[in-house]
């Protein structure tokens, strides 16, 4: 009878120990997973903090793009081939210096941490053109006999041509985004080395 009680007590003690060990292991696993998840969150937070600071200080939200164009004034608007290579087919041809402002809304940036592939992916929104082209100096490439009165018209033509060309220019918007993307990728590529060199940063 006593032997049976002893065995029962030993069994209970073993069961308690096993339960304690299992609970401890579970706790350790929980703590480790909490810290690793928190680490991802920390990477995100740190990237967001530095991103806000970099964007704010370095004017990455706006890109001023040099947009110089050639504008052609037809001799006869009803019968004019704008694709003609001959400068003399036009009343005048003018070289216009201009700039275009593009903007990126960095509030729409998305940051993801891909722990499996050891990647931090920063996704930027598309750039948008802000306002109208700004025309600076203009230069007539022909038409030496032009009157000074033509100048306002030529300037207006520059404005219209720059607007029309920029709207059709399928390289402009990606280039505006690329201006900011290159800087961010360059910076975060180095930044992550200090934080965790096993990670790479992709900005897209």
């Amino acid at each position: 009878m006593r032997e049976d009680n002893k065995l029962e007590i030993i069994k209970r003690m073993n069961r308690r120990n096993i339960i304690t060990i299992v609970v401890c292991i579970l706790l350790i696993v929980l703590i480790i997973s909490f810290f690793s998840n928190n680490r991802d969150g920390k990477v995100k937070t740190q990237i967001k903090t530095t991103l806000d600071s970099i964007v704010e200080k370095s004017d990455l939200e706006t890109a001023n793009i040099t947009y110089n164009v050639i504008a052609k004034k037809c001799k006869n608007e009803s019968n004019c081939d704008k694709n003609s290579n001959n400068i003399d087919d036009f009343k005048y041809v003018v070289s216009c210096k201009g700039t275009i402002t593009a903007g990126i809304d960095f509030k729409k940036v998305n940051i993801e941490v891909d722990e499996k592939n050891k990647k931090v992916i920063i996704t930027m929104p598309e750039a948008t053109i802000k306002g109208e082209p700004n025309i600076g100096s203009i230069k007539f490439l022909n038409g030496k006999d032009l009157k000074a009165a033509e100048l306002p018209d030529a300037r207006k033509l520059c404005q219209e041509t720059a607007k029309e060309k920029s709207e059709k220019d399928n390289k402009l918007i990606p280039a505006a985004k690329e201006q900011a993307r290159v800087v961010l990728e360059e910076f975060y590529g180095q930044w992550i080395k200090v934080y965790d060199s096993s990670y790479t940063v992709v900005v897209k």
Partner: protein
Amino acid sequence: MKKGFICGLLVMTILFISGCENSKNELTTENIKKLELTGNLVTYQAYYHNVIEYDKPVGVGITHLLEKERKLFAEYTGTIRLGINLSKVKIEMKKNSINVFIPKTKIIGEPNVNKDDFDANNFIESKDSWINSNPITADDSASAFDKAQKEMKEVAMNDEELLSQAQQRAKILIEEKIIQLSGLNRKDLKIMWEYEQ
């Protein structure tokens, strides 16, 4: 006894993990060494939509008699990268501050001009002589392309605002890295900046 051991193990694990998290929160000379970087840091990529003016002179020799000087105009696009040479960045730890020297902006790599823009169909040309022709050839397209590359480089190198902005961005990026390394608050860091002109 066993419970004590398990609890001890638990406490050590927690301490180890929290220790790992805090190990980088100080600015030491050792940490600063990580900032002594090599290579180039691109801080600006400028996109240009430009106009090229190219002059084709009259040829030399009897066969070129009565030729006319030709002018060629074309629009082209290209990008140019600007930044600093990181190996020239100097970081000095002082008692109460950090001195950082930022080298001047340079062009990184070659300008990337779009060659397709130098197709003869995209040109606007001055009138040719009707007596002896001086045509625009593929060689002229290639020369115009070379001129565009050089011009874009010159324009960028003479654009004080652009150079200053690229240098300023380098400063911002380095400042962020110092903050990252130190784990210190922005306000607690005293950084003295020196810029190469």
